């Protein structure tokens, strides 16, 4: 794998280039280096990458096509009122851009994504397409047992596809490597929260998202490298408001939109971009039964999300905690158009924020958007209303 530049600015630019490239060059390189090895692409939000990794496969997190793809097939198949990422993912598949993937994984996040799995299955009969039922009932232990069985079902298919057997030892090793990845990302998030002027959100974002397309070991090296460089970096503090971004856990806003938000006066103290990469708020235990450890962590040690249901600790309460922890003054809802889980959650988030007198700004985006004048104006107006109130 290509080594990134020791210059931080160049590193971030390289990462940005990587996530714009719809030919998945790093995946092609990995396949060349590992003849016969398989690649599993997964649709957001979360997939148990540890299992794919332990099987000697490369997990690739798919995140739509941004504004890089004109829809020729997907619009006719998914029609109106369906979010962009569902259509762009189908378009990627139908234009052979996912040809490097030997399998595609989907999960229980929303109705559109679920139907997409089967539409892809019909239109791409040559590849392995699977759907994981990630449980929604957090009470009791029934969900742990079920999810472990669901992981075993997945393992059966992956073993067949790869010809490799997954051992508990290999799983523990993969869990440890992904724990490390999440810890490094957490350190970067903490650094950004503390020193936003020294690590811009768009930089953190592209660095994190580059991990979608490269082996986790390489990503860990990159993250460590950046963490070593950061303390020596300087940056100017600006007049800005500290905000938490909520709602971009699945379809991703255009990179330029994130930049526009920062330019318009937002210091992003926390966000839920590509949430699947930071899914757990504590390490998955390495010792013991690895599948039960993964299942228990999913249920009891995950971050809150609009697509995971845990009524023991409602999301709207957790958003308030997040705002407090980030010392944020406001919340910006950056919601993908037609994203039903995010739209529903907004109702209770809004009620809770209003009760706590925390201002918020709802914005709606599509991944294919490329002009942001209206966004800039709305954000600037919001920022000014708080800076000069």
């Amino acid at each position, binding site marked *: 794998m290509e080594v990134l530049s020791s210059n931080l600015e160049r590193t971030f630019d390289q990462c940005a280039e990587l996530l714009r490239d719809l030919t998945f060059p790093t995946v092609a390189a990995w396949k060349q280096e590992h003849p016969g090895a398989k690649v599993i692409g997964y649709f957001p939000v979360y997939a148990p990458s540890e299992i794919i990794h332990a099987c000697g496969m490369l997990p690739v997190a798919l995140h739509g096509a941004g504004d890089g793809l004109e829809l020729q097939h997907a619009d006719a198949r998914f*029609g109106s009122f369906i979010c962009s990422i569902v259509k762009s993912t189908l378009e990627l598949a139908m234009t052979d851009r996912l040809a490097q993937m030997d399998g595609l994984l989907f999960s229980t996040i929303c109705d559109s994504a679920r139907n997409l799995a089967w539409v892809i299955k019909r239109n791409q009969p040559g590849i392995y397409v699977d759907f994981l039922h990630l449980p929604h009932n957090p009470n009791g232990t029934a969900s742990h047992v079920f999810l472990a069985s669901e992981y075993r079902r997945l393992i059966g298919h992956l073993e067949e596809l790869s010809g490799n057997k997954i051992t508990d030892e290999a799983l523990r090793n993969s869990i440890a490597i992904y724990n490390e990845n999440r810890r490094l990302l957490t350190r970067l998030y903490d650094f950004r929260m503390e020193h936003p002027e020294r690590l811009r959100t768009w930089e953190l974002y592209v660095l994190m998202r580059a991990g979608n397309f490269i082996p986790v070991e390489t990503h860990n090296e990159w993250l460590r490298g950046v963490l070593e460089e950061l303390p020596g970096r300087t940056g100017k503090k600006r007049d800005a408001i500290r905000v938490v971004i909520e709602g971009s856990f699945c379809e991703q806003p255009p990179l330029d939109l994130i930049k526009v938000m920062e330019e318009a006066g937002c210091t992003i103290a926390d966000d839920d971009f590509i949430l699947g990469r930071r899914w757990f708020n504590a390490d998955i235990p390495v010792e013991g039964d690895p599948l039960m450890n993964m299942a228990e962590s999913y249920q009891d040690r995950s971050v809150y999300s609009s697509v995971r249901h845990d009524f023991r600790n409602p999301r709207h309460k957790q958003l308030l905690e997040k705002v407090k922890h980030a010392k944020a003054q406001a919340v910006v809802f950056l919601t993908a158009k037609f994203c039903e889980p995010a739209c529903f959650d907004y109702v209770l988030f809004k*009620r809770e924020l209003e009760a706590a007198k925390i201002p918020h700004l709802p914005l709606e985006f599509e991944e294919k958007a490329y002009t942001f004048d209206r966004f800039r104006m709305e954000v600037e107006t919001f920022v000014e209303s708080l800076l000069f109130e």
Partner: protein
Amino acid sequence: MATSEKMEYRGQIHQLQKDMMVEWYQKLNESALTGKPPAVSLMISGNCIELLEAFDLLPLYPEVNALQLAIRRQSLEPILIAEEMGYATDNCAYVKADIGAMVKGITPAGGKLPVASLALCNFVGCNVYTKWFEHIAEFQKSPLFMLDVPFLRTDSPSKDDIAYVVRQLHDLVKELEKISGKKFDMDRFREAVRNSAKVEDLWSQIKHLSKKKPSPFDAFFDCISLMGPLYVYRANPRGVHFFEVALKEYQDMVARGQGTFEKEKYRVVLEGPPPYPFFRTFRDMFAKWGACAVASTYSTVGGLWEFGFRHDPAEPFEAIALHMIENNVTNRNYLQRYDQIRKYVDEWEADGLIIHFVKSCRLFSAGQGDMRDYFTKELGIPTLYLESDIEDPRYFSEAQIKNRMDAFFESLGHAPARTAAQLSAGRAGSGIPMVPVQSPKLRVLN
């Protein structure tokens, strides 16, 4: 040529159905006033009414409230109230109508609706259910029970899938004991399941009668009327009586050679929910052409029984799990729905397929363009694709839908009849794995 026919056959069961549903609303009103019997809100898809019946608890279906509001043209006001609360224009309007009506105390029948003693979210396929019930619980301060049903992502449910649901059902029983103040009685539960099995058998016989030419009823519009008793009274002897009457009535019609219309000109399969705010208008568009729905997927939301599944009183918990996981259209995967529709077209001998895309329901609608592609290009079945909404009157364009419908039936009138051989030839080229609609492992009541 279009006929001028507007009215369709309406027998005694339509009145009986009305009486039973009015009585249910009266009970809900009584429950709201006295707290007795306690009400449990739950979803239609794969509903476990048998457990409620065993505890004498009253079912409260938010979906039925929503559709009643829409069919009475009362849905827009609560939808707008919900949008003021922060719901998006793109959120399911069923939820918006129900929540808007709830916070403003609007009810479809004018009486009161009780606060649910338990919000039982039977998550069967529809992800919106999870949000809807979270919100009901939040706004009504009702306890929430999340019954997580694994989506049918394999040909048939695994032992792990069934065990997971059964474990949760046992947890649910403990909750229902608390709410009702009654101990769980296995014999009563079995009796409820036995009633359901009888109703399912009658319902299934009815649904196969629409294979007759002419069909004695419309398997979309008339089935929607029958679905009320099917979900509210299925586990009760009154449900058995109702469906005995219904079957007899339709059998008599068949014996007389009587159809839905004086002259049945076209037989179609309908995919998707109806536009409830324009239910009558929509129906008239079919009646104008003498077009009868001989099968529909919407009538299998609550349960899919015409291919053999019955609740088994010998293993009632497992039966409920199988109903929820495998035997309702919403928890089955999308290609299994293609297969279900294909069977309808073949075995019910339909001339075409009408797909009704509703904006609110992505479970039904996301990907229906691909479905159209499959039925037209792979199978060569005439297919019409319409768009509107199940609940929100703002998304129904009457002139546009009427024009498309007229053009479709006009062209169908000129199309040469397809032969069975043509149908099979079309199928051979499909990319769909031929999954049987009904798993051979299923228990079938003899």
